């Protein structure tokens, strides 16, 4: 008799059904607010205006439009130049922070990370004040042979400032993962410093360098704010999308550009995944962390270098700050608050600022809950196995989707009259959901890392004691993970404060946020209020960091006292 294979299925405990329902909710949300909009972009790119399938005709038409192909080329070479300039600069900075004994490491690190607190276009505004038509150093720049900051030159320097901290963080991590024993072995063999650098340090940081380069390239090519503000007539893909979709209502070609923008992000994503697997396997549990030794000449050189970079960063930040307080650039440089007054009141930016706060708070709270519950249910519960691979993929996809593409997908999907969710269009709810989805992956990975560090058998023990999983979640998992929750929440808050790319397609006059207001003010020829608004956003992000620091301290005292017991 042939054996009949009947899969044995375990009955589901009633309590576990709650978990399954939760997982299903997160899944449906990601399908509706991530997968469906992305599918809409892909659909648009292969359909004509009347919705007929035209295969790759739109792409062919795109490649036959010289102006658009020119933008593609511009995007590529500008991104490449920024990557080639930023990575060595950031590597040296990271090297100084991790491998030298220079003083003020904390200060240098903090200054280098400040660009994260403001929208990327703050740099563009600042460079206009330095080198623009009425810029302080315009003549010096022209003496160097650069005719105008508006265009490729402006984009490159602004992007370098904006992406520096992103590259720096990756490289610091890569250089921290060093095994001191390799260096000791090299010393024992009498290896010179240069040889050690090229045979141990550089190969060790190889994956970090690749990853940082890819991330930098992708960030630059998908950035919208900087080319919009300082690009002048220099067209790039990101500004093309906006012009095509908002200006000309040419959704098809907009979708084509979006699909093209998706390519570098996708490549970065897959290479990064590949690299992460290799990087973790490189550092064994037995590795001894490297700690630098004093070397006066080297330490002084590193200090000088970091001081120079920090000074440049402060110059960029400082100019925006200064300009926001100046009465009438460049004619009356006396102190005044009129840009803040004008920006906040006259240009109705007060609503924008409060909208930003709403968006940031909504994202910080809603995103943290969604991400953490999703990651927990995915990592720590059993059952509904058919749902899990899809969930896992959906949680990682946002990393590979530029904000512009996501925003465009939201227009296509939610603005279509047949969609029952159409009512969400232009609402703050949709902005919040879009921002959560946009930054989902980093939050998710942070949560997964924290959850994986917990004992894998907590849930098994609870089940054997007949304690439902949600009780253990509330009594054990959540309290242990509160510091991680704060990290995720802060990440969401700051990104929601500073993001432009996705929301630029989705706001209405009622839901305009501060970062968009900067764009509009700049476009209206009001650089002063634009700078003031950018400073306000940075100040809010900074204040948020301080609040989170305080919360972290409170949480540490309330829920983590078991950690530091002796």
């Amino acid at each position, binding site marked *: 008799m042939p054996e009949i294979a009947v899969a*044995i299925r*375990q*009955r589901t*405990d009633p309590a576990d059904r709650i978990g399954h329902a939760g997982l299903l909710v997160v899944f449906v949300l990601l399908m509706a607010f991530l997968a469906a909009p992305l599918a809409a972009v892909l659909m648009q790119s292969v359909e004509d205006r009347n919705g007929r399938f035209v295969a790759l005709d739109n792409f062919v038409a795109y490649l036959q439009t010289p102006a658009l192909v020119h933008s593609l080329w511009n995007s590529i070479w500008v991104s490449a130049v920024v990557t080639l300039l930023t990575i060595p600069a950031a590597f040296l900075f990271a090297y100084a922070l991790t491998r030298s004994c220079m003083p003020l490491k904390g200060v240098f690190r903090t200054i280098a990370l400040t660009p994260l607190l403001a929208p990327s276009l703050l740099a563009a505004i600042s460079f206009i004040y330095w080198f623009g038509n009425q810029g302080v150093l315009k003549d010096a720049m022209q003496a160097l042979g650069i005719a105008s900051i508006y265009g490729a030159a402006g984009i490159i320097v602004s992007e370098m400032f904006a992406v520096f901290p992103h590259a720096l963080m990756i490289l610091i991590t890569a250089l921290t993962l060093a095994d001191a024993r390799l260096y000791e072995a090299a010393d024992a063999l009498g290896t010179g410093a240069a040889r050690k650098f090229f045979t141990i340090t550089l190969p060790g940081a190889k994956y970090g360098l690749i990853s940082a380069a890819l991330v930098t390239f992708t960030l630059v090519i998908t950035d919208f704010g900087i080319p919009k503000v300082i690009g002048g007539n220099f067209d790039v893909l990101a500004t093309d999308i906006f012009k095509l979709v908002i200006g000309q209502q040419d959704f098809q070609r907009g979708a084509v550009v979006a699909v093209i923008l998706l390519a570098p992000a996708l490549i970065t994503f897959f290479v990064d995944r590949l690299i992460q697997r290799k990087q973790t396997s490189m550092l064994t549990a037995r590795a001894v962390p490297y700690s630098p030794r004093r070397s006066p000449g080297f330490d002084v050189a590193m200090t000088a270098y970091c001081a120079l970079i920090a000074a440049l960063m402060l110059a960029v930040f400082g100019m925006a700050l200064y300009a926001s307080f100046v009465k009438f650039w460049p004619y009356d440089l006396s102190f005044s608050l009129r840009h803040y007054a004008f920006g906040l009141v006259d240009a109705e930016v007060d609503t924008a600022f409060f909208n930003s706060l709403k968006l940031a708070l909504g994202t910080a709270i809603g995103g943290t809950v969604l991400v953490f519950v999703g990651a927990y249910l995915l990592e720590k519960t059993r059952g509904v196995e058919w749902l899990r691979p899809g969930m896992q993929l959906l949680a990682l996809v946002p990393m590979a989707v530029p904000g512009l593409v996501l925003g465009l997908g939201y227009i296509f999907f939610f603005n279509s009259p047949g969609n029952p969710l159409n009512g969400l269009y232009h609402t703050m709810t949709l902005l919040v959901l879009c921002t959560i989805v946009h930054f989902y992956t980093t939050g998710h990975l942070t949560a997964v890392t924290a959850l994986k560090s917990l*004992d894998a058998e907590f849930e098994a*023990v609870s089940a*054997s*004691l007949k304690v439902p999983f949600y009780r253990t979640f509330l009594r054990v998992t959540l309290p242990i993970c509160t510091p991680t929750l704060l990290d995720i929440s802060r990440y969401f808050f700051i990104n929601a404060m500073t993001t432009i790319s996705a929301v630029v397609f989705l706001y209405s006059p009622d839901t305009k946020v501060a970062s968009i207001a900067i764009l509009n003010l700049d476009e209206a020829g009001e650089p002063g209020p634009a700078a003031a608004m950018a400073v306000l956003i940075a100040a809010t992000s900074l204040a948020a960091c301080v609040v989170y620091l305080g919360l972290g301290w409170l949480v540490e005292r309330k829920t983590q006292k*078991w950690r530091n*017991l002796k």
Partner: protein
Amino acid sequence: MNGKNSRSYLELSGVEKKFGAFNALRDINLGVAQSEFVCFLGPSGCGKTTLLRIIAGLEVQSAGTVRQAGRDISRLPPAQRDYGIVFQSYALFPNLSVFDNVAYGLVNRRAPRAAIAARVAELLKLVGLPDAGAKYPSQLSGGQQQRIALARALATSPGLLLLDEPLSALDALERVRLRQEIRLLQQRLGVTTIMVTHDQEEALSMADRIVVMNQGAIEQVGSALEIYREPASPFVADFVGKVNVLAGTAENGGLRIGAALLECNGTHVPKSLSVKIYLRPEDIVARPIAPGDSNVFDARIEKIEFLGSYCLVRVATDVLGQPLTVYLSLNFLSEQALAPGSRLKLRILPDRLRLFDA
């Protein structure tokens, strides 16, 4: 004792587990009696932990049934089964005090607070840590943490106690101490217990019965002595204890190894001509050897490995043509002034040879 025993408290029949094309468990049939202490012993990857997790409902078997106390639990989720479990990692909740950890399963049963406190105190006393209640797990040693995990697992008086390599994370001294404590506790409470281990010493010293597993199948089930003295397969003989493996042929009811014809009592000589002979080092003796004893031969010491009161001695034998490993006491070696190169007479005990088809 196996499978169909109607008095078994826990009964596994025809349990299989497939991971894709890989057979993690094949046709497992086993009965565990009430109050019995059973060890699953085997190398890593043999399926012993998978089997334990199937009994716990943490994995689902691909085929077969699991019955506990007469109830078919094959398809029940963990929460609806009746067992306490202890893991190698302790899995204590680090943010809860020892008291709260032990009370974790009790609180859920809505027992009155005083009753819970009394039960926790009783359990902490049982595991020898009566004053640990207010501490946090990180303040305890590994062995102490595992005792608390044991108390937590026993708190709800489960019918079955599952121990998944509970001693593997502990240092050697603590391990020996705790293994005696667990055994005593188990005998006192009479709780049916299954322990998974890869450490033969642990299994031999603790279990009523040992289930030796290899590549997803049960090789042998038996008491420690049975497993050691009468291994059912070359694998068991090899895995449990040290063993010499010699090649020989069956001849006239005896065994020919090299130039020697050995007497062998008690064991059945297989039909096939060429056999593998399994022989424990302690079954080759240097004394007493009386004149006229059989199976005596000359040997030359090649290497002595000092292990304490006994030494593992490698000897060459011209007559057998194959080297042997024997245990000789340190006293014997010094009495006889034996060193590498020395010659001595050895005797193979005729009733201790285990034969398997080559």
